[in-house]
């Protein structure tokens, strides 16, 4: 399509405005963490690192960070195992109901999170606590997170398996290796970087999740996003909340950036 000069200039201007729209709010939050005005008057009257010091010493965010990291590691570990198994089954076998399973694995992120949330909450209250004595806490957070992290591992591994084809595994079998040996010596080494990429995405998603977590977290196990949300409407906590928000931006972007670099050619295929 031959675009006129005017159209090109208009499109460039439009894109500039959109990118400004995308980045200004994030920039404002970051700048506000150094804003000396408690209520974030704009433009900032002065520069201070007081809020960062305050936030680094506060006990609440520190406890919440620990819960978030544990939950992220737990959920990622479970999702790694289950997502890889599922990807191997769906990529290397043909069977009845395959299509239904590939929808089932997406469902936890496609249905509104609040539905998943109240569903898990009512299971915790009506089954886990009275029958098994398990209350809402770190364990239930991990179960919820693992459920929607499976799809991230599944997508990454499936993309890699599709690109790899099955010939190397067949060669290994022809040479007499049993299935588990083939997996250990052939499949797994080839999957390693895609597993790492998937794991980083799963950790980032778990670290950031709030919609389902609200319903699965107990009073003693707040994750970092829950801590922010609970303190969001308390005016005197505002500066500390803002600093924690900046930390959260950094912690959720870095793993994704790493994952993008690791996934390389697969990245184009799996977007979620």
């Amino acid at each position, binding site marked *: *399509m*031959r675009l006129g000069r005017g*159209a*090109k200039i208009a*499109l*460039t201007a*439009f*894109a500039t405005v*959109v990118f400004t729209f*995308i*980045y*200004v*709010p*994030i920039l*404002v*939050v970051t700048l*506000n963490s150094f804003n000396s005005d408690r209520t*974030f008057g*704009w433009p900032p009257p002065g520069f201070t690192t007081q809020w960062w010091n305050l936030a680094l010493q506060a006990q609440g965010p520190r406890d919440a960070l620990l819960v978030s990291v544990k939950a992220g590691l737990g959920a990622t570990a479970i999702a790694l195992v*289950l*997502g890889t*198994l*599922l990807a*191997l*089954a769906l990529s290397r*076998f043909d069977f009845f109901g395959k299509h239904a*399973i590939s929808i*089932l694995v997406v469902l*936890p992120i*496609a*249905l*509104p999170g*609040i*539905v*998943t949330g*109240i*569903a*898990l909450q*009512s*299971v915790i209250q009506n089954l886990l606590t009275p029958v098994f004595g398990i209350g809402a806490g770190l364990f239930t957070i991990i179960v919820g997170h*693992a*459920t929607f992290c*499976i799809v991230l591992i599944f997508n990454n591994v499936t993309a890699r398996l599709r690109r790899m084809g099955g010939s190397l595994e067949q060669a290994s079998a022809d040479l007499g290796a*049993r299935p588990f040996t083939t997996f250990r010596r052939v499949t797994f080494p080839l999957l390693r970087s895609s597993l790492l990429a998937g794991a980083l995405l799963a950790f*980032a998603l778990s670290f*950031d999740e*709030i*919609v389902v977590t609200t319903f699965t977290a107990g009073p003693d196990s707040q994750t970092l*996003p829950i801590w922010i*949300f609970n303190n*969001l409407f308390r005016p005197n906590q505002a500066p500390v*909340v*803002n600093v924690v*928000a900046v930390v*959260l*931006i950094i912690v*959720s*972007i870095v793993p*994704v*950036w790493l994952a993008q670099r690791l996934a390389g050619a697969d990245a184009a295929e799996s977007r979620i």
Partner: protein
Amino acid sequence: MSRRRGLAALLGPPLLWLVVAYLGALAVIFATAFWTTDPFTNQVVRTFTLENFADLFSPTYLRIIGRTLLIAALVTVLCIAIAVPLAFFMARVAPRRLRGLLLAAVLVPLWASYLVKAYAWRTMVQPDGVLDNAFGATPGYGFGALVLTLTYLWLPYMVLPVYAAFERLPETHLEASADLGARPLATFRRVVVPALLPAIAAGSIFTFSLSLGDYIAVQIVGGKLQVLGTAVLQNITLDLPFAAALGTVSALIMVLYLLAVRRTGALDNL
């Protein structure tokens, strides 16, 4: 080891997890929607009733459902209106060496914390905040701020598939159309738009579903605005069956939407 046993060993654990932890929980909540509560203790009583669904048709809840659908639709339309020209610029107008960078620039905020982005808009629209000082006006907390924030939050989900569709569209198709005498606008309408539709539909699944289920952003920037998500939240402790019915409605709307867009081939574009 037979192939069948191998498949069972692979499928068993993940299916057990998804069916027990996820489908089981969903089944419980859908069943709850047909139960009732004891008026004195607020405990769930397991007797079958359709009352919860009948209550949905009261003017209050019809208005809330209507408002939520309107918000989801507005957000989706705004995302399309922004994403199409932006993706076109990224894929066709910007210099080739900048494209990867621009794509990353859209992707990175997608992964920045959802909560923090909603919070960022709170500081943007608050009285005496950035918008107020930059433009002398702010929508304040409420409907406008919510639509703006949700558009901001879900925009990357629309840009990515549309950008991919522009990348796939062969330049020769556009040239052929121009050679046949079509002006840019006619080419856009008759060649580009049909090629984009599945991608737009795929993006809209996210913009629509995520707006429909949102209850966090609305509390942060929506002021006292009531949507489906907040209505579910308010009923959970006192009337879980009714909250479950509201949840069932939003899941049902989403399933209908998925079925509707499936015809465009959107599901292959996810």
